[in-house]
């Protein structure tokens, strides 16, 4: 066991995969000698050589398009998109190509690949270094969407994603890169995709969240507990395919649900989860489902602390749900 930050756990995961499997290639903008703008790929070029970890021209479309070609022909590409905000030139390659290749070829061609990218706010990045675009991708059959919130899960989910036979979008909460630290097993291990993590047990209100919102919800729950409200917190970890059974079970457990994400509200994960619960177990609900989310606006810079759901906003929702 080593005590690592989330970003160190990502680096360790990449290293472990590259050691175990010579077909794993890591590439993207500035991932080589610089080691990535957040240092996720630090020293990989030094340790594995410039053919296994390298810089590409500044083209997300090129990065993802070539990754698909590598993946269909025997390699395991792990491509980095420097910020999730810059993934859109590759939207076509991801949505029209990687995600649909298996289906459109009757399984003859596949794209087992991972796209890693930092997402979310909290670094004063304004419109284009802060976005949470998971909903665009969760609307894409054929793609998997994974978001870790602990160092342990970052490595285990990354290794599971690299081993997965389908394309995985691996969204890393950049706000947690260095603020989250935890025990990470040495060597190879995986955390199964499409499984939830119970963060905290409690019988009054269920809080469903993921990524950088998990520690925010934990803080809110600690404050709620001071007033006798015990929250059951679930980290979704994989958004697509979602562990629907797990979500429903968690919802039924308390009959009161708060869903938290930093992405805009409209057509976001919160809406999907609310509908899932409403369709399947509305009779268990003691209170309306409450969403705490980013606003339906672009992501501001100076006022980002108002945009991002914080402990106070989550606590307010928990209290409203409990009091209903």
């Amino acid at each position, binding site marked *: 066991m080593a005590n690592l930050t989330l970003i160190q756990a990502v680096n360790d995961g990449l290293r472990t995969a590259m050691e175990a499997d010579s077909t794993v290639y890591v590439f993207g*903008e*500035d991932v*080589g*000698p*610089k*080691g990535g*703008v957040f240092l996720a790929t630090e020293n990989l070029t030094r340790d594995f050589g410039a053919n296994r970890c390298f*810089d*590409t*021209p*500044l*083209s997300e*479309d*090129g990065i993802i398009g070539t990754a698909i070609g590598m993946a269909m022909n025997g390699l395991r590409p792990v491509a980095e998109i420097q910020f999730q*905000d*810059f993934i*859109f*030139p590759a939207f076509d390659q991801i949505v029209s190509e990687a995600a649909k290749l298996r289906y459109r070829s009757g399984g003859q061609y596949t794209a087992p690949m991972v796209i890693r990218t930092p997402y979310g706010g909290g670094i*004063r*990045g*304004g*419109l*284009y*270094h802060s976005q949470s675009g998971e909903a665009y991708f969760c609307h894409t059959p054929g793609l998997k969407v994974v978001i870790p919130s602990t160092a342990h899960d970052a490595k285990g989910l990354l290794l599971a994603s690299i081993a997965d036979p389908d394309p995985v979008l691996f969204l890393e909460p950049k706000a947690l890169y260095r603020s989250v630290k935890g025990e990470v097993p040495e060597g190879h291990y995986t955390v199964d995709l499409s499984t939830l993590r119970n963060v905290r047990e409690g019988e009054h209100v269920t809080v469903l969240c993921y990524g950088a919102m998990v520690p925010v919800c934990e803080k809110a729950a600690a404050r709620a507990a001071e007033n006798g409200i015990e929250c059951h917190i679930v980290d979704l970890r994989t958004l697509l395919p979602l562990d629907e059974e797990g979500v429903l079970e968690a919802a039924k457990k308390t009959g009161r649900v708060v869903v938290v994400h930093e992405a805009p*509200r*409209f057509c976001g994960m919160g809406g999907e989860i609310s509908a899932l619960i409403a369709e399947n177990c509305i009779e268990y609900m003691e209170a309306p489902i409450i969403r705490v989310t980013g*606003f*339906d*606006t*672009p992501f*501001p*810079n*100076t*006022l980002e602390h*108002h*945009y991002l759901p914080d402990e*106070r*906003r989550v606590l*307010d929702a928990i209290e409203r749900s409990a009091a209903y």
Partner: protein
Amino acid sequence: MSQPAPLTVIEPDGRASMGHDPGLSDDELLHCYRTMLLVRAFDDICLKLQRSGRIGFSIPNKGIEATQVGAASALRKSDWIFPSYRDFGMAMYHGIKSVDMMHNMFGNAQDSALGRQMPVHFSFTEPIKFYSISSPIGTHLPQAVGAAFAMKERGEDNVALVSFGDGGTSSLGFHSGLNFAGVWKAPVVFLCQNNGYAISCPSEQQTASDGYAIKGVAYGVPGVVVDGNDLLAVRQATGEAVERARRGDGPTIIEAVTFRMGGHSTSDDPSRYVPKELFEEWEKKDPVERFEKYLASRGLWTKERGESMRGDVMKEVADAAREAQGVGKPPLESIFSDVYAEVPAHLRAQGAAAFDLAKRFGDPDAGEGEFPL
């Protein structure tokens, strides 16, 4: 295919080579010089503000002042600039005030975009159209072509100058922008600032071609290469391209060969990837010193005059920083305004809820009274 040697005008001894001197008046020359000094002062002060935690971020401009200012000097106020984030000098040449740029650096209530964007993502309409900067690289190239199309349709003889880096030539926007401009003969000047690196990625890894100007050939867009540390060479090449565009003869791509004398941004440590010798080599080609030599050869510069102008611009920028720092944050409702021309009902509801919550939490950003939208 290989490129010609870059056009150079200022000789090592400071004289302008015959035939290419754009023939600027003394006033114009001094305005260019002052603007370069202003960029350098703004750059220095922003780095200090960032290091001391007063602003979050900045982008070093040192080393490329001659490219920015030389190119901007070929435009008139009715032209449009589609800048990159490393183009302080283009704005300043045309009279955009240091203090207005500082409001953006602080993201305060007087910033033209109300603190919504990161620092260095300026947007101005006066005294020249200095188009709102977007982070995604290359997106503004086709947009510049569209704006130029509109100029042409209206029968104006204005032009659009679009500026981007060597890395930008790999973007989708570069290729569609050049292609459309070629087909439409749009009045556009593409200015590729080849400053050696795209963050940490050197040119060899960006392209296998011999430079960037020749990329225009296949799009039917003539390309020229200039010494980007030579203000007169940049001015000369841009002037010719602008005239060509005004005449209706279509676009040009200019590659200015220069060097970024610092990190990509204040978050970057170039010692991880730029060999020391490169900085040393380019330090000797400093664009400001080179221009000083030229000015001296025309009797326009002495050390004392230079020092006194440096003092002036430092004071101007320091005053601007002080003023901007004293301005408060944008109001809470600025999160919800300008998303659409009219605030739709769902945003009004979200804004009002945020406003109420902020008040309940005693957050000063909420201000007084009702949610104003």
